[in-house]
């Protein structure tokens, strides 16, 4: 390549960490409650993958025409002469593994991609705990060591939120990326998934830029439910045509002129193919997938990702 890309000292990453405001934490709880309630209602009369080995009775609600009569509480009908159905939810049997990409490319964007991924993870974990699942958070710290934090009760959510707030992206290179967690000498996710006796759900949050789809399939394939949360920065969605692009992981620069209108058009085509490739991969292998901008609120895309 004969462009003017060069490696040199670069500016610090704009969004290397995570910060949860009290308002944000309140939103996590509200989101989890709303989605959990919706799940409980939907559980009535339907078989959902979310349900595990047992069902936990949580209450009654009036019967709606068309619902499965097997859910009807006949004793209550006889006593009150009004139809009610039993509301149940999955018991504590399910375990979730939440994996976060902390590579350098997650430290960009305003708001940052790592911030957005951490918010999505926190909201998902809140939901999981609300649904009675045990949750284990997995990431790689800046020194390259694998870090995990597991909780089983909703009361321990603070512990996970603190761990998320302590996240920092890696300074350079691809270390801390999803690929390194899925395959390679430090790949820990496959062992975690197996050791937990078969995690019911695996949630991965990152930009998936350097993740091999086949390795993902090899590692996480099976009966478990896999959710792929793909976050890109606003600039990655709509890159400017008059700037120097800087690769956060390699330090490589692309001259400003390479981003002219025609070049940007080509980029958009390639980005569309890249995202569509992940979406198609997810559909084919019964995975959930959502791609969003780090500027989007998690309430917009997370319900679809967690279905």
């Amino acid at each position, binding site marked *: *390549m*004969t*462009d*003017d890309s060069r490696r040199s000292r*670069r*500016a610090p*990453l*704009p969004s290397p960490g995570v910060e949860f405001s009290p308002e944000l934490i309140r939103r996590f709880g509200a989101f989890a409650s709303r989605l959990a309630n919706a799940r409980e209602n939907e559980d009535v009369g339907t078989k959902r993958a979310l349900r595990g080995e047992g069902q936990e009775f949580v209450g009654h609600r009036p019967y709606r025409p068309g619902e499965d009569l097997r859910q009807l509480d006949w004793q209550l009908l006889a006593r009150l002469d009004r139809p009610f159905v039993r509301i149940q939810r999955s018991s504590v049997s399910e375990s979730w593994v939440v994996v976060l990409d902390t590579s350098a*490319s*997650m*430290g*960009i*964007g305003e708001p940052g*991609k790592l911030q957005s991924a951490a918010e999505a993870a926190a909201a998902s974990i809140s939901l999981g705990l609300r649904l009675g699942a045990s949750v284990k958070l997995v990431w790689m710290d800046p020194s390259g060591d694998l870090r995990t934090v597991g909780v089983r009760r909703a009361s321990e959510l603070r512990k996970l939120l603190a761990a998320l707030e302590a996240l920092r992206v890696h300074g350079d290179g691809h270390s801390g990326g999803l690929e390194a967690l899925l395959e390679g000498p430090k790949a820990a996710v496959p062992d975690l998934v197996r050791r937990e006796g078969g995690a019911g759900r695996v949630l991965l949050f990152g*930009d998936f*830029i350097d993740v091999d789809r086949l390795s993902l399939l090899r590692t996480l394939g099976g009966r478990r439910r896999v959710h792929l949360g793909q976050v*890109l*920065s606003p*600039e*990655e969605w709509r*890159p*400017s*045509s*008059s*700037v*120097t*692009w*800087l*690769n*956060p*992981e390699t330090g*490589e*620069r*692309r*001259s*400003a*002129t*390479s981003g*002219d209108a025609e*070049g940007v058009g*080509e*980029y958009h085509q*390639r*980005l569309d193919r*890249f995202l569509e490739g992940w979406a198609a991969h997810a559909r084919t292998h019964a995975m959930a997938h959502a791609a969003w901008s780090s500027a989007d609120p998690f309430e917009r895309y997370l319900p679809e990702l967690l279905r």
Partner: protein
Amino acid sequence: MMVLAYALGPTMGLVFLEPVALIGLVAPFVLLALGLRRQESREVYLGTTRLLSAQEAGEAGARKRSLPAWLVAAAIATALGVLALAKPGYEGAPPQGVVVELVVDQSPSMYLPLQAQGAATPATRRIDAAWEAFGRWADGHEADITGGVYVTTGAGDPVPWQDVPVPDEPETAAPEVLWQAHDAASTVWITDRGVDDQDRGSAGLFASGGEAIPGPVSVGAQGEIYWKADGTSEFREVSGQGQGQAGVVRLDPDVPRVLRDLAGVWADVRGMRLEMSEGAGDEPELWVGMASTGAPPEPSPGTGGTGSTSVRVGRDGWEADVSLSGSEGAAPRLGDGWGPWLLDPAGQALVTMAPGQVELGFADFQGQPSDEAAFAVSWIGLFDRARLSPNRVVEPSERRAAGSAVAIPPSEPAVLEAPGAAALRDQQAERAAALRALLAGAAALAGLVALVLLVLRK
């Protein structure tokens, strides 16, 4: 295009009337430089740069440095706007020259010599010396402005100053000029003695100065009163043929009796000899007669249409009835040196005067005037003004020394435009306005294009 061709037609003499605004031309260059610098310096992290790799490789380094079109359009708009603000216009045609209004003192002192008799230099009149001083300034000013100095002495068109002759001495003594009435930036006063600065604000002043000039201040039959330079005077008997003769006042026998009596007293006081028209033929210093030619004056309203009529007239504080009848009612002369002194209620001249002459257009007075004293002073004043100055007789105030010469140019002579300059200026103003409108319109259009490009870019 027609507007452009019209505006740029006469490119000769195109100037910027507000050249300071041209500093603003730096702005578009700064804008472009900042754009280039920003383009070079702004770095944005992009995790998806690998999506560019194949494309970049395909371009094989065909790099070019370009500015966004909106920025270029904005720079053009700024440049055009600055040019419009600098007000392009045209240099006007050079003026033909300047015009000054000359106010010339023609009092008797102006015609006295600059120096007393006996000086080594030839006698030069004060008016000639002052005129020459004005001429020296005019010569120099013409060289400075590469144009002419033109003068007006009244309501006429300006003429080159060289074409204006030194005014002749009036036949009757002219009064001093009321200078304050002529104090203007384009006015030049020509006199013999310096005017008080309190009276002169912006007018130019060329004064000859001059020594005190001894000489007669009154002449009678037996001799003359001689004024000396030290301010004293003495009576000198004169002898010899033609010397010491008193001046003559000649009256028409038909002049009303009251005026004949008044003229007699006046002549006696002045040491003059009163003659009726039948008298010997000495050239009189004053002639008072009846109008005998021309159409009779129109009767005033209310005075009757035929026969003897009576009208009420007056001036200087007196009033009297006069009769108009027969040939005595002919109109006195007017014009050609004759001016009105007394008018009837309809505005017709009843008494006119010229140097050395007074002519009456009424037959007689009817009854006594309302104020006899005012009547006498008024008519004596007329006789004094009309009387020809006797040779060599000048009032003492005119004979006094006039001090040193003064030469103060006018502060702001009026500009005299060349013929056709006004039309050319109007045409140039139209073209300049069209050019400015064109620039402003183009700037607005470029600004709009820049805005649209910027919006489309986002």
